[in-house]
């Protein structure tokens, strides 16, 4: 504990004084990093600096510790000018509401490329209607189910359409020896230890939505209620509990490291994954390493499943992944803000987005029609450019991804199965969007949820897992839901209802 206060003291001493001198020709940014950090003198960074006509000072933070680092940085009082941040992270909400970040709600219209492309998503990424950052656009319907195609074929099964099919297939995968080794050593569905809380796009959340439960919050009898306080939630979890108790789900579902999610699928221990659709291409990668010819026969994908009665509810994601927020401490005046926004505006142009997401044209990719294909893949220097794009610079792009376009070129993967999968992805997204269940409470942040998060956030996801593993009865699960209400949840619900109705009036 002392170390925490020590860090805070040291930084608060320096933070209280004069703000760092802003140099209009330098921009400082903190962003997520996957893999190794780009060299500040590397080709990619130089290309971006040349494009902007400015020095770029990047603070790359590994994704796994990003949230921790964010909270510490907020406390440090020494903020970079631009930060990639989840706009609903309690630490950010508190800092933003205290005035640590610029309220951009009325400022974006002046910049041709920063004006939110989608008002609904802009609202969803806001804090109670106030926009504190440029949202990074992502396709909203990305939930899907990935299945071992070879197993389905071997057992003569069809692709699932309903949750009942899901059960049938899982049972067959577990009991009918799909890998043909004569042993009963497989299971149907693979679920990892989920790092997020309730309504954080976990397989549980997706399945509950398939059963008709709200996505996070939903209207019941004219009032917004949390999704877990509905009969559909219970129904879905009873269904899953049955699968767990019959051995159709991996037995270590509460402890399996989520970074190893693909392993049991690839190793033939389990046959189904409910997650984002791009995971299908990750597992294709794994199978291609084993067998570059027939890897396409191993992976199938379907979209959201129907309920037993044929009704379909699809689970959408938020439509954005984090926002770019601008610090008021290191960007003190309106003039400085204008300077930073102009820079971001330039990055949001077609040229900027292509640079951030595709890389350097003619160096690591070439344009074919409206898609980009990789070139010079074996040149180690080009490989670095490609890695710097994929692991790092793509994090600064705000207009879509190179999976589905946006402003940058869609990257065409080599190999027919990849192309097929990409096509299927698009098709499923469009189809599932029609039945998407949106979370009406996404734009609002209840103050009680922010201040009491430590005490109540784990109650529901923990209870859910305990119920699934048979440690809690249905009555005890309901007791835990009541405990959530008693520990501050009642207040959260009231505040969410108030905030949403206020939001409705202003729009």
């Amino acid at each position, binding site marked *: 504990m002392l170390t*925490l206060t020590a860090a*805070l003291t040291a930084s608060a001493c320096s933070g209280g004084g004069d703000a760092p001198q802003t140099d209009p020709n330098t921009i400082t940014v903190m962003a997520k990093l996957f893999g190794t950090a780009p060299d500040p003198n590397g080709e990619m960074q130089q290309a971006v600096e040349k494009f902007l006509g400015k020095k770029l000072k990047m603070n790359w933070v590994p994704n796994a510790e990003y*949230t*921790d680092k964010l909270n510490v940085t907020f406390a440090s009082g020494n903020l970079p000018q631009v930060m990639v941040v989840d706009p609903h992270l309690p630490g950010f909400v508190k800092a933003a509401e205290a005035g640590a970040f610029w309220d951009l709600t009325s400022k974006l219209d002046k910049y041709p490329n920063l004006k939110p492309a989608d008002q609904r998503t802009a609202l969803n990424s806001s804090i109670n209607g106030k926009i504190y950052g440029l949202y990074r656009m992502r396709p909203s319907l990305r939930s899907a189910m990935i299945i071992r195609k070879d197993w389905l074929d071997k057992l003569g099964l069809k692709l699932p359409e309903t949750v009942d099919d899901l059960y049938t297939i899982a049972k067959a995968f577990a009991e009918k020896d799909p890998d043909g080794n004569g042993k009963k050593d497989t299971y149907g569905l693979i679920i990892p230890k989920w790092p997020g809380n309730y309504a954080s796009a976990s397989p549980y959340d997706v399945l509950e939505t398939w059963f008709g439960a709200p996505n996070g919050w939903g209207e019941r009898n004219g009032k917004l209620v949390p999704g877990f306080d509905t009969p559909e939630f219970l129904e879905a979890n009873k269904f899953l509990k049955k699968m767990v108790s019959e051995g159709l789900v991996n037995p270590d579902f509460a402890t399996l490291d989520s970074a190893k999610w693909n392993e049991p699928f690839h190793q033939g221990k389990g046959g189904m994954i409910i997650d984002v659709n791009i995971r299908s291409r990750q597992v294709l990668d794994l199978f291609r390493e084993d067998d570059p010819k027939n890897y396409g026969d191993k992976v199938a994908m379907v979209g959201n499943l129907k309920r037993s009665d044929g009704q379909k509810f699809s689970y959408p994601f938020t439509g954005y992944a984090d926002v770019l927020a601008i610090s008021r401490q290191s960007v003190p005046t309106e003039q400085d803000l204008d300077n930073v926004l102009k820079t971001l505006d330039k990055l949001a142009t077609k040229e900027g987005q292509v640079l951030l997401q595709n890389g350097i044209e003619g160096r690591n990719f070439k344009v074919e029609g409206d898609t980009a294909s990789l070139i010079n893949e074996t040149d180690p220097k080009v490989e670095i450019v490609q890695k710097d794009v994929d692991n790092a610079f793509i994090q600064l792009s705000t207009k879509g991804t190179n999976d589905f376009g946006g402003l940058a070129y869609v990257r065409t993967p080599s190999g027919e199965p990849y192309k097929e999968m990409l096509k299927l992805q698009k098709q499923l997204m469009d189809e599932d969007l029609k039945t998407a269940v949106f979370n009406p409470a996404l734009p609002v942040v209840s103050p009680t949820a922010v201040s009491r998060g430590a005490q109540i956030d784990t109650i529901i996801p923990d209870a859910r897992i*305990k119920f699934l593993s048979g*440690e809690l009865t249905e009555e005890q699960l309901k007791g835990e839901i009541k405990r959530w209400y008693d*520990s501050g949840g009642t207040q959260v619900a009231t505040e969410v209802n108030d905030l949403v109705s206020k939001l409705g009036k202003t729009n």
Partner: protein
Amino acid sequence: MATDLAPPPTKAASKSGHRRPGVGLRAVFGRYRWLYLMLLPGIVYFALFKYLPMYGVTIAFQDFLPFLGYSGSPWVGFKHFEELFAGPDFGRLMFNTLFLALLHMLIVFPAPIVVALLLNELRINILKRSVQSLVYIPHFLSWTIVAALTYVLFAADFGVLSGWIRDFLGDTSKIDYMAQEDWFRPLIILQQLWKLTGWGTIIYLAALAGVDPQLYEAARMDGAGRFKQLWHVTLPAIRPTIVVMAILASGNLLDSGFEQIWLMTTSLNRSVADVFDTYVYYSGITQGAISYSTAVGLFKGVAGVILIFGSNWLAKRLGQRGLF
């Protein structure tokens, strides 16, 4: 400490030969100036890195917002403490922390003493030394590795040990040792025993090496067997060491070992795994509730100080030399 040392022979002192030690503060400083000068870096270090940061605990009494700083954040008095004490987590945190501490004191603390006594009875030196080396190797492994090893041994699916246990019991059900509440504390204690025992043994072995062999000879002359020697010679000889170690341990009673517990926590065992240390991290760093988690940490610190003074007092009452 400085006063125990002989004063340095300053020029003035050596000339006059028998000058009386100075009476005023100034004279004392002058006489021992080099010693005080040597003390200075230590004082500066503690002031800068140990005492100054303590000012930071004031944020436990504020609704601290970094943007506003210490001066700008509103004061809220004991709000965060009230929230903690009245909150639903406090009882559980207190129980988990104390229960783990109790298990630690009962099982992990005496283990090095027992091992040291056993090793001391070994008469083959080479065996004694190799056992000693072997048991303290785990000390050098990080908790991350210990947790990973535990996972490999006890995982429901492929755990080596859980497989053996299943075969041995002829049990077909898969117990997920890593995920069950009932198994959390045994696993934690087992890990601590494995990792900490050998290292702790070193101090007691050192103390045992200092026991006068004549005492054993005298005891043997009086007809004491191995066990009587152990009881009447060895144990009393290392008793002061044990007491000091116990007092020191009591100060860390509420330190449940953040890393170890954090690594072993899952959704299924959180209700028994949550302790003050992990809670401070979770609420402070992960959730960003800085003031609240500082209040929790401060409470823990105060309780630790009370415990160490209490056990020191108790040791003195029981006729032992305390720590201070």
